[in-house]
């Protein structure tokens, strides 16, 4: 590996690599990165047909399955491939940030009640169904309409849609490409959080780094915020699962050599590639709808708990990002405009304001990027940059990245009462299970500040604000 800049490391193309691998990291982050298999996975992705420029990894990278977590790869739309392993099982796992009109002082006395109601109203935890019951026809509507489906049913404001990636509805979803098994799993999970690292967080703006951008986003110190982190639930998991064997067969049929079978893929122009894209987009829209419904439920919880009118509470959508997705985008590559299928596996789009995809009110500052840290420390709001468009197909990190394995975290937690420790710090945590809290404790994650600083120093995003958690509901 060679050092290209202070924050960029390159794996030169060797063997069957078609392009170099490029890792964004500080030297400190790199030591940990080199201790696992993420660099090998970056190199593996570089062997896939039609990959353009480089196989990339963001500073929160770690060993995943197939693609590394934090991996970004763009494929030529005519010569390249699409791979479910580059999207993952939790298709369109993503983050929404909502900003209230309330300050920490006004909310703090009600925080226990808020958390109890959130926990009661929004199903969470392993295997949680109990979401909105959908018929197969309604589910097909969700799959093609995304968050619009929810807004049309008065589950949210039309204004929300402007501030969701793809305006909450990616075109090209094809429910005919979704199996009956996936449909079965999707019928009762809209409006549910799930488990693992998914969460709802009430926080407040702790620090502003870029006052101009913060003002455009309507963020101010002490302001209460809410973060939703979840995805497409069993519907997305099943779609990925259904397509892996199909893509495995397709890769053989098209003579694609795979260094890791989890990278199974098909040419974007093939019927198999198009079928996967059609199904994957259904899950993308399902996830947009899921977060929209949860956002609506959160507004109801705040209104009922605080006994205030909606306009006094606010909770407007600042932005919502996807971080497990493959999208057809236009990028300049060596001075030439090209249509590419950009895979982001645990990575966030980070477009500069010049792009049409950025909501008009944010064109002066760039697309907001939402980076959750961990439940004991902080999260960040960033913006995309022109440099990211030049270097990373407009991509940046998606989170802190784990420092300990799940079982390692449970072992490290031992008999500690993590909930009580966080309560002493003024952070209220409610979870469906003690094990999840241990798996997700602060020490299980890298310090997200190191990750976002690396992104900022590498020029692929800019810090706007830091949020401090007040309360967290875990699955």
């Amino acid at each position: 590996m060679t050092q290209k800049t202070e924050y960029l490391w390159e794996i030169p193309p060797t063997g069957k690599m078609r392009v170099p691998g490029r890792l964004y990291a500080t030297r400190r982050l790199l030591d940990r990165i080199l201790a696992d298999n993420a660099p090998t996975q970056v190199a593996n992705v570089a062997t896939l047909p039609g990959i353009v420029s480089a196989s990339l990894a963001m500073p929160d990278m770690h060993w995943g399955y197939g693609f590394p977590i934090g991996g970004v790869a763009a494929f030529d739309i005519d010569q390249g491939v699409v791979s479910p392993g580059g999207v993952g099982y939790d298709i369109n796992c993503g983050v929404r940030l909502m900003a209230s009109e309330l300050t920490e002082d006004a909310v703090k006395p009600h925080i226990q009640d808020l958390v109890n109601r959130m926990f009661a109203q929004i199903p969470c935890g392993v295997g949680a169904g109990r979401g909105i019951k959908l018929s197969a026809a309604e589910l097909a509507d969700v799959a093609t309409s995304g968050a619009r489906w929810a807004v049309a049913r008065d589950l949210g404001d039309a204004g929300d849609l402007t501030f969701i990636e793809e305006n909450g509805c990616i075109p090209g979803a094809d429910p005919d490409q979704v199996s009956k098994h996936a449909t079965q799993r999707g019928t009762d999970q809209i409006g549910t959080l799930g488990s693992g690292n998914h969460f709802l967080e009430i926080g407040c703006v702790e620090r502003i780094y870029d006052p101009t951008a913060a003002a455009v986003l309507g963020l101010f110190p002490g302001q209460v915020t809410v973060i939703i982190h979840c995805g497409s639930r069993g519907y997305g998991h099943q779609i990925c699962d259904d397509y892996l064997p199909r893509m495995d067969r397709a890769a053989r049929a098209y003579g694609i050599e795979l260094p890791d079978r989890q990278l199974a893929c098909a040419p974007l122009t093939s019927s198999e590639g198009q079928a996967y894209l059609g199904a994957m987009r259904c899950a993308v829209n399902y996830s947009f709808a899921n977060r929209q419904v949860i956002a609506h439920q959160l507004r109801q919880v705040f209104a009922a708990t605080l006994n205030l009118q909606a306009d006094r509470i606010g909770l407007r959508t600042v932005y919502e990002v996807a971080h497990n997705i493959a999208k057809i985008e236009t990028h300049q590559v060596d001075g030439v405009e090209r249509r590419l299928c950009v895979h982001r596996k645990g990575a966030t789009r980070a477009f500069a304001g010049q792009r049409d995809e950025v909501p008009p009110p944010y064109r002066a500052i760039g697309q907001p990027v939402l980076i959750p840290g961990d439940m004991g420390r902080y999260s960040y709001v960033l913006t995309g940059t022109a440099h990211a468009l030049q270097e990373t197909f407009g991509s940046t990190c998606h989170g802190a990245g784990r420092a300990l394995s799940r079982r390692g975290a449970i072992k490290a937690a031992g008999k500690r009462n993590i909930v009580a420790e966080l309560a002493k710090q003024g952070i209220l945590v409610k979870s469906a299970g003690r094990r999840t809290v241990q798996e997700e404790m602060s020490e299980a994650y890298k310090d997200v500040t190191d990750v976002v600083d690396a992104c900022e120093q590498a020029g692929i995003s800019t810090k706007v604000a830091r949020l401090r958690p007040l309360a967290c509901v875990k699955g």
Partner: protein
Amino acid sequence: MHDEESGAPAWLERLDHPADEMIRVQAASLPELFERVAWAMFYCITDMAAVCPATARDVQVNAPDRDALLVRWLAELNRLHHTEGLLGAQFRVLQLDATGLRARVSGEPMDPARHTLHAEIKGVTFHGLRIESTGTGWRATVLFDM
């Protein structure tokens, strides 16, 4: 509280992975290997001591080769867990060849009063998948996306 590590059989090893669950299973024969890996998957999900083999069903899967067959077998059981609440307790391979498997799965539906779910398996991956002969038996390594 359930201590999952204390109940692990000697033939099951849980390997370190930063975000997901990687297991290694030993068995005397290939059919036993498929049976044990299935048991190990449910062991990652729940407290197996609380799962009774109350009802039995046959499960059949096909795949182009043995590695893919193991992934399909586990993915099918995981699907049944998510769609029907199945918790598997006992697994008996009735027929196994290079591309097909038929097995009898005994278990019961998830009952929140008696069963605790530790984790959700999103998917059974090919990453790091290995089925190896050890000379005296067989060994499989499987990574689950959690």
